[in-house]
């Protein structure tokens, strides 16, 4: 069934490029003819990346059987790059973030695909080996500053712990490093702050502490799961520009998960749009914002209030995203897509990649 089939058929020119680039399309270890030289080239290409994610899938084990929350997600992060991951609630952004750090529950969740951190494959690592990467080479910042610090530990205890998790270090040296880290994040009176309890700090300060901790070991990648959503706009802006400067200086790459497209436009180098567990479009921020190719991206952009004249009616994306248990065959966005055609319910689109990024749609929009 295809209730959303539009009355008019969009005449569509030939897809610009259908050649899949080895950097984004080829799942590692996948079958298919490959010259040895090609593989080598692929590996060097990938090890130059801070993070490469290939066909990452996460399945939840439930009483009704396995549910796929993340479906073959692939993207790359270059050193110093900020990649924004956007998508509506429940599309799988947080699950992706956790899977990247190996923080999924091994009993109820199974993870497939490949995650390469600075060229090293993470998924086959033992728990101990993975722990030694977490916080040192890849860090995570969470959304709610009120809950992401242990209320019964001082700021100093948190930072000492974060340092000692990866190196043996004396109290004095740790103290100095912690003070510097806080000052880098624009926290004044740092020695005093180290003695403070989390409940004595404002939300903005707490989030700065969390970010300072994420930066402690100069990781290659920081995954930030809506880190400024709970903060007011001024604090948000300050923190964002500080983080941006730090990323530039230290070469740390950011995967920045957010709902806020205004932030994305100002702040991200590239965007990945997620829908129902899949990445439906990637590309340079400017290109995605000016000429989105996936109908869902288009719809998301149409929902941004800043893009409207005063008094003009806001667009909404009608309908709901499919539930994990009731995932339709064909394209997952079909029921809500203004561009949908008959074939959309029969063919699951495959990711197409070209120099402008990638998209997952049978009938992409053309500018």
């Amino acid at each position, binding site marked *: 069934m295809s209730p959303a089939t539009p009355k008019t058929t969009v005449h569509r020119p030939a897809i610009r490029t259908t050649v899949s680039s080895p950097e984004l399309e080829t799942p590692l270890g996948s079958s298919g003819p490959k010259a040895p030289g090609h593989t080598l080239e692929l590996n060097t290409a990938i090890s130059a990346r801070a993070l490469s994610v290939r066909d990452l899938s996460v399945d939840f084990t439930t009483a009704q059987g396995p549910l796929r929350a993340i479906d073959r997600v692939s993207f790359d992060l270059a050193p110093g790059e900020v990649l924004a991951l956007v998508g509506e609630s429940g599309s799988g952004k947080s699950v992706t973030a956790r899977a990247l*750090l190996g923080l999924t529950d091994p009993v109820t969740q199974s993870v497939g695909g490949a995650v390469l951190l600075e060229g090293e494959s993470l998924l086959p690592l033992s728990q101990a080996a993975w722990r030694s990467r977490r916080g040192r080479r890849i860090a*995570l910042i969470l959304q709610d500053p009120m809950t*992401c610090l242990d209320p019964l*530990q001082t700021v100093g205890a948190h930072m000492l*712990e974060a340092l000692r998790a990866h190196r043996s270090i004396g109290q004095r040296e740790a103290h100095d490093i912690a003070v510097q880290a806080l000052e880098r994040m624009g926290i004044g009176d740092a020695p005093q702050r180290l003695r403070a309890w989390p*409940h004595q700090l404002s939300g903005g300060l707490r989030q700065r502490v969390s970010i300072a*901790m*994420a930066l402690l070991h100069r990781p290659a990648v920081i995954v930030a799961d809506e880190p400024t959503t709970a903060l007011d706009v001024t604090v948000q802006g300050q923190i964002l520009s500080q983080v941006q400067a730090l990323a530039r200086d230290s070469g740390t790459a950011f995967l920045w998960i957010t709902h806020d497209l205004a932030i994305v436009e100002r702040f991200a180098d590239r965007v990945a749009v997620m829908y129902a567990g899949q990445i439906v479009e990637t590309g340079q921020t400017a290109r995605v914002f000016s000429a989105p190719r996936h109908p869902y991206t288009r719809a998301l952009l149409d929902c941004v209030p800043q893009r409207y004249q005063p008094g003009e009616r806001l667009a909404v994306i009608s309908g709901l995203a499919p539930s994990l248990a009731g995932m339709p065959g064909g394209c997952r966005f079909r029921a809500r897509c203004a561009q949908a055609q008959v074939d959309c319910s029969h063919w699951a689109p495959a990711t197409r990649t070209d120099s402008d990024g990638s998209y997952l749609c049978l009938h992409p929009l053309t500018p």
Partner: protein
Amino acid sequence: MLSEAAARLLQSLLVLLTMSAVVFAGVYLIGNPLDMLIPPQASELERAQAGHALGLDQSLITQYLLFLQHALEGNLGRSFFSNSPALGLILDRLPATIELALSAALIAVGLGVPIGIGCAWYAQRFGTRVLLGLATLGFSVPTFWVGLLLIMLFSVQLQWLPSGGRDASGHLFGIATSFGSWRGLSHLLLPAISLALFKLALLIRLTYAATREVLQQDFILAARARGVALPRLLGVHVLRNIGVSLTQVIGLEFGALVAFSIVTESVFAWPGMGKLLIDAINSLDRPVVVAYLLVTVTLFTAINLVVDLIALVLDPRLRRAGLQ
């Protein structure tokens, strides 16, 4: 922090004062002690003289203040039967009871808390379900039955451990106690285990539930993302966060162990306070009952004070004044 602690101390003293009044009213004003002390055929004059000698002709307030004054001097009257000081009788038995309660608490906390935390971390595993099932079973088995079972197995069948009595011939830090010798410990082991079993089951379930809740929190995920290793995650973050509610329960349960260990004391012929109290109640030996009540109330108040102080140390949010 210090002023908070002082406030708690003052509170405790007020509670003690109130409780002394309740105990006084309960035991001294309900019924006439003379009925117990004086033969029924005595004359009115003799009764009046005896009443005067005991101060019973004074006003209620005066009597209470006298009682309070004596109590502060450590004099809670003499047993009607043995004529020895009531407080002395209680204090003679107190070490045995405390010893037993302390061992039971050590077993229950030492095993229950780690098992509870482990069960919460490995929540979905098969072994966890088995352990939690056993803990639930532990609730439904009566203590005396467990005691008898233990005696049958370890004393009668295997003959490894004595079936009853206490041996305090050994010394630890100059105090005569069961902890002072192997013989003492062997006498202590069975009653302590049988008393601990119910509390162990309780602590496993409580620790499990509390830990599950803490593990859901963002700061646990954040700590793991920083590479904090499991022993530190569970031993520092989880333990301290469940610590406040856990010490509260442990404190209450320890008080209960001291006050209500009578069944176990009977089964194992353990010379504790419980046995003394039952005898005193049966013979209407009021001074002993009063002494018992006051000692128990003092103990409960002290435990509560300690629990409150531990909470202050563990949770900075409870310290209002001071820091800022």
